[in-house]
């Protein structure tokens, strides 16, 4: 590689990296926890999805009560079943029968929990799992009042993901020549800059395939409109819904409203069960009722093949309820279309839901490793600029920037553990509780460490506080949630057991890291470290 190219890779890698680092850290950290979203939800509510028998969804009573309250005639009704969760998302559209239906214009959506049998609004059903999952694509930023025609948070997340992809490519090219020789180089007792560089390179290269997969699937999942909008203009006359239908995101059921009521409305429970009997192992994903109570009434039941059997597979049955005939049928076990295959591939790669806990844990470790790569990247950036020939005001700015970034990043760990504890102790949940707890404590931690202006302290203390809080998570679940580790294990509630054990492990590991950091901190400092150490006490992370 010639020098010029090397310098270009180097500069583009540095610039794109330092712009996105803090946000990317948030995405990585929250994203790593999101692999366990369902387990976290189960942990918080205290009802395991594994050991508790999943009741069948009460179509009959649900539709009856909705019908008496809102008059379903002429509406489309949707049930979306969350995987591994007792929660169902229920919604219905305004009615097309505006003449007879008094409440025709009303529409509604809510979450129904089939274990507690309660309806809650989305905001009330919001739990820590959902919060961390949404944080990992910055959904909370959507509430920032910047109107640009696309949710602000998603746009930022998309940009970060794209720059990350760019930084990954340049980073790989940067190390291409020395990929093999440097792979085995780790010099933890050398200069600080060397330590950071070695961590950054070694972990970056080991994690490269993983990070690349997540960057590229992530950018697709969050901003595919960037790609699709021009196509909708050029090839579809601006009809976005037509594109989504072609790409199998939505299923349209062609059945114009006829405004002739059916004599008897068929019992939907039996119809859904009839559909389910075709593929008993497949996961029921969505039930759509088109034109309720009309002669044109249709029922669509969508299935997904279990991931341990097939990576990609969606099935659908559409019934014409006026005569009971099947209009369309597609087995989830059929070989998928090209589109379906690519989409499932991207989706499952990103969600890591194809190999049980093993894959999830590996992905979590790789994700946290990504966090370490980001932090070490920030520190390389700082240390490389902390030289005598750099003007004082620039050095000051750099130091501040690094302080702020590191404070934001590292305080996420104790704050996350704290939120787990807070929801368990108070029993509160919902957006109105989780938002203030998480964001204010995050702000408090961050401000505190920015003001302390000591990278080593930030690292040491967040590790210690985080370790203690993590240790408290399973204890709090025992005391306030009345489920101790051994109890959840005994009743076979593996998801709840897993989260407790998981925090216990995190606690032990971070505590060990903390002890190492402290030991090193008090060791007589070698001479060559002095210039850096006086200016900024930085300590190792791992």
């Amino acid at each position, binding site marked *: 590689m010639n020098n010029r190219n090397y310098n270009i890779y180097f500069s583009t890698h540095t610039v794109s990296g330092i712009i996105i680092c803090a946000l990317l850290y948030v995405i990585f950290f929250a994203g790593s926890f999101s692999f366990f979203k369902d387990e976290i939800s189960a942990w918080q509510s205290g009802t395991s999805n594994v050991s508790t028998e999943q009741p069948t969804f009460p179509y009959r009573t649900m539709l009856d009560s909705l019908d008496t309250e809102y008059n379903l005639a002429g509406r489309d009704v949707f049930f979306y079943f969350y995987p591994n969760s007792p929660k169902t998302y229920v919604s219905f559209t305004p009615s097309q029968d505006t003449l007879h239906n008094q409440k025709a214009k009303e529409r509604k959506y809510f979450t129904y929990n089939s274990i507690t049998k309660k309806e809650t609004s989305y905001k009330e059903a919001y739990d820590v799992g959902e919060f961390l999952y949404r944080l990992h694509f910055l959904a909370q930023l959507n509430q920032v009042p910047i109107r640009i025609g696309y949710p602000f948070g998603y746009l930022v997340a998309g940009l970060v993901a*794209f720059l990350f992809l760019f930084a990954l*490519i340049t980073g790989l090219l940067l190390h291409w020549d020395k990929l093999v020789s440097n792979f085995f180089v780790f010099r933890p007792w050398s200069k600080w800059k060397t330590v950071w560089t070695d961590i950054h390179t070694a972990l970056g290269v080991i994690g490269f395939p993983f990070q690349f997969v997540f960057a*590229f699937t992530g*950018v697709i999942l969050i901003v595919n409109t960037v*790609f*699709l909008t021009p196509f909708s203009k050029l090839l579809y006359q601006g009809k976005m819904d037509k594109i989504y239908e072609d790409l199998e995101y939505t299923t349209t059921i062609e059945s114009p409203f006829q405004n002739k009521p059916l004599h008897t409305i068929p019992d939907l429970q039996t119809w859904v069960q009839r559909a389910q009997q075709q593929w008993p192992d497949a996961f029921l994903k969505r039930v759509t009722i088109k034109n309720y109570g009309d002669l044109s009434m249709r029922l669509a039941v969508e299935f997904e093949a279990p991931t341990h059997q097939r990576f990609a597979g969606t099935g659908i049955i559409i019934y014409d309820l006026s005569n009971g005939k099947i209009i369309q049928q597609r087995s989830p076990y059929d070989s998928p279309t*090209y*589109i379906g295959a690519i989409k499932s591939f991207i989706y499952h790669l990103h969600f890591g839901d194809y190999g049980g806990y093993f894959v999830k844990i590996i992905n979590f470790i790789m994700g946290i490793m990504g966090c370490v790569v980001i932090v070490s990247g920030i520190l390389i950036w700082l240390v490389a600029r902390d030289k005598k020939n750099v003007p004082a005001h620039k050095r000051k700015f750099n130091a501040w920037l690094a302080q702020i970034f590191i404070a934001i990043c590292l305080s996420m760990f104790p704050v996350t553990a704290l939120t787990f504890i807070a929801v368990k102790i108070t029993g509160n949940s919902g957006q109105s509780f989780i938002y203030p707890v998480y964001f204010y404590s995050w702000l408090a931690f961050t401000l505190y460490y920015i003001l302390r202006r000591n990278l080593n302290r930030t690292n040491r203390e967040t590790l210690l506080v985080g370790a203690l809080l993590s240790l408290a998570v399973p204890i709090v679940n025992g005391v306030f949630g009345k489920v101790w580790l051994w109890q959840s294990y005994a009743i076979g509630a593996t998801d709840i057991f897993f989260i407790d054990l998981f925090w216990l492990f995190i606690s032990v590991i971070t505590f060990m890291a903390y002890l190492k950091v402290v030991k090193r901190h008090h060791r007589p400092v070698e001479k060559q470290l002095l210039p850096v150490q006086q200016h900024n006490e930085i300590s190792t992370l791992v």
Partner: protein
Amino acid sequence: MISFFLMLSYFFEKKNVMITGIAIGYILWAVLLLFAFLARSGWKIWLIYLLLITLFVLPHLLNA
């Protein structure tokens, strides 16, 4: 990048081209961005990119 896939859509099934574009378009885009940085002259790379765009858009313009 967009224009490249637009051209492909005249040779293959358009919905398949779109999903392929979704899958690899962003990587292609990032690589093109890098090429722009690697270029020795900003004008030259502009020229090359503009030429490529015109070339790829041609089938669409001729058809429209």
